[in-house]
C-alpha cells in the first residue's frame, strides 16, 4: 500500500498536522481521488502504534485533530528503503511509480537511480514474458502480450520521466 508510505514520506520533509498532510497528499498524489480524512487519521494512528510516527500533544483549536505528527528514525528508514526499491513489474503500476519519484525528489533521494532500477525490473519481466510467448500456447501468448503492452507503456513513462527529472524536481521543490 502506498498511502502509509506516501504519508510517511511527506512527514519526512517536516512534521505536519493531519489536515496539512491530507492537503499535500491530494495535491501531489490524489489526482481527482482525494484521501478521506478518516483514512488519514486511521493510517496515522496505525503508524503511531507501530512506532513509525509520533503524535504530539493535542493543541487547542477547532479542527477534529490538532496533533502534530513527526516521523521516527524507524519510519525514516522504511521510507528510504521503499524509495530505492523497484516495484514488482505488473501492469497498472503508474500511481506507485509516480509517488516514488515525486517523494524521492522532494526528499533529495536518488530518483534517477530508482528509475534505472525500476526500468531493469520491468525489462527483466518483459524478457520472461517474451520467453513465455516463444514456447507457449496461443492463450498464454495473448495473455503475455497484454502484460507486455502495459509494461511497455510503463517503460515509456519511465524513460520520459528520466529525461524530465530536472524539471519535475523544480516543480515539487518546496517554495
Amino acid at each position, binding site marked *: 500500500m502506498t498511502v502509509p508510505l506516501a504519508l510517511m514520506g511527506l512527514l519526512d520533509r517536516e512534521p505536519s498536522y493531519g489536515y496539512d498532510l491530507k492537503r499535500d497528499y491530494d495535491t501531489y498524489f490524489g489526482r481527482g481521488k482525494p484521501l478521506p480524512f478518516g483514512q488519514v487519521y486511521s493510517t496515522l494512528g496505525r503508524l503511531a502504534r507501530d512506532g513509525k510516527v509520533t503524535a504530539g500533544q493535542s493543541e487547542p483549536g477547532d479542527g477534529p485533530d490538532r496533533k502534530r505528527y513527526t516521523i521516527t528514525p524507524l519510519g525514516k528508514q522504511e521510507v528510504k528503503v521503499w524509495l530505492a526499491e523497484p516495484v514488482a513489474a505488473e501492469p497498472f503500476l503508474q500511481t506507485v511509480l509516480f509517488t516514488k519519484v515525486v517523494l524521492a525528489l522532494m526528499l533529495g533521494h536518488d530518483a534517477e537511480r530508482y528509475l*534505472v*532500477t525500476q*526500468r*531493469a525490473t*520491468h*525489462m527483466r519481466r*518483459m*524478457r520472461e*514474458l*517474451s520467453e513465455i510467448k*516463444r514456447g507457449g500456447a496461443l492463450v498464454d501468448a495473448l495473455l503475455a502480450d497484454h502484460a*507486455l503492452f502495459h*509494461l*511497455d507503456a510503463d*517503460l*515509456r513513462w519511465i*524513460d520520459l520521466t528520466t*529525461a524530465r527529472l530536472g524539471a519535475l524536481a523544480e516543480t515539487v521543490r518546496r517554495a
Partner: protein
Amino acid sequence: MTVDALPVPGPLLEARSIDRSYGRTQALREASLSVTAGEILAIMGPSGSGKSTLLHCLAGIFTPDAGEVWFDGRRLDTLSDARRSELRRTSLGFVFQFGQLVPELTVADNVALPLLLGKVRRKQAYQRADGWLKRLELDDLGERRTGELSGGQAQRVAIARALVARPKVIFADEPTGALDSLTGEKVMELLVGLAREEGTTVIVVTHDARVAACADREVMVRDGKVTDPYADEAVR
C-alpha cells in the same frame, strides 16, 4: 578441483573505454562494453546518446579516437582498412533499418551476394541462399526484385543475407524501426530464433522495449557512456 579447470569463455567482442567525436560533438566518452559469444544483446538509450556510433565502432566500420576494440582475441581498431573490411565480410553480418539491399537485384541475388563476394561457387551460393529463404519463409519471393518488397519482407531478406555467410556476430541497428509493431516483432523473433540455432552473437540497437525483451540482456547508452542496469545486482 581448481577454478582454472572450468571453461570460462572470454568476451567475443569488447569495447574498452572508447571515445569517438564528430567534429565538436563527442558521441562516445569512455564507453565500455563486453559481449559473450552466442549472446543476444540489446542496446537501448535516448536518441542521440551514441548507440549507432557505438555499434559502428564495435563492427569496425568506424575507428574510435581513443580506447580499444577487441574481436575474437584480436585488436580490431588497429587493423588496416583492408583487413577490417575483410573481417567484416567474413565474420560479421549487418541488418540496418533500410537500404542495405540492392534494389535492382532479386531476393535470391541479394542473399547470395555475400557468398559470391566470398568466392563461393555460383551454384552452391544460390543453393545456400535458397535454404535461408526457406527458413525465413521467403521461398515464394526469390525471383522478386528487392525494390518491390514490403518493409517486413525486405527486413527478412536482410536477415537472410546477414546470416548466409555464417558470421560470428550480427549487428542490427533499429532493424524493426520502420515496421509496425507486429511485423517488427515477427522479424525480431526470426532474427533471434535463427541466431540462437546458429549460435550467432547478435547486437541490436533498438528503441522498442518489446524488441529488446527478445534479447538475453540489455545495456543503456546515455551521453556517450554505456551503463549496465543490472550492475548493482551482481554485487549484491
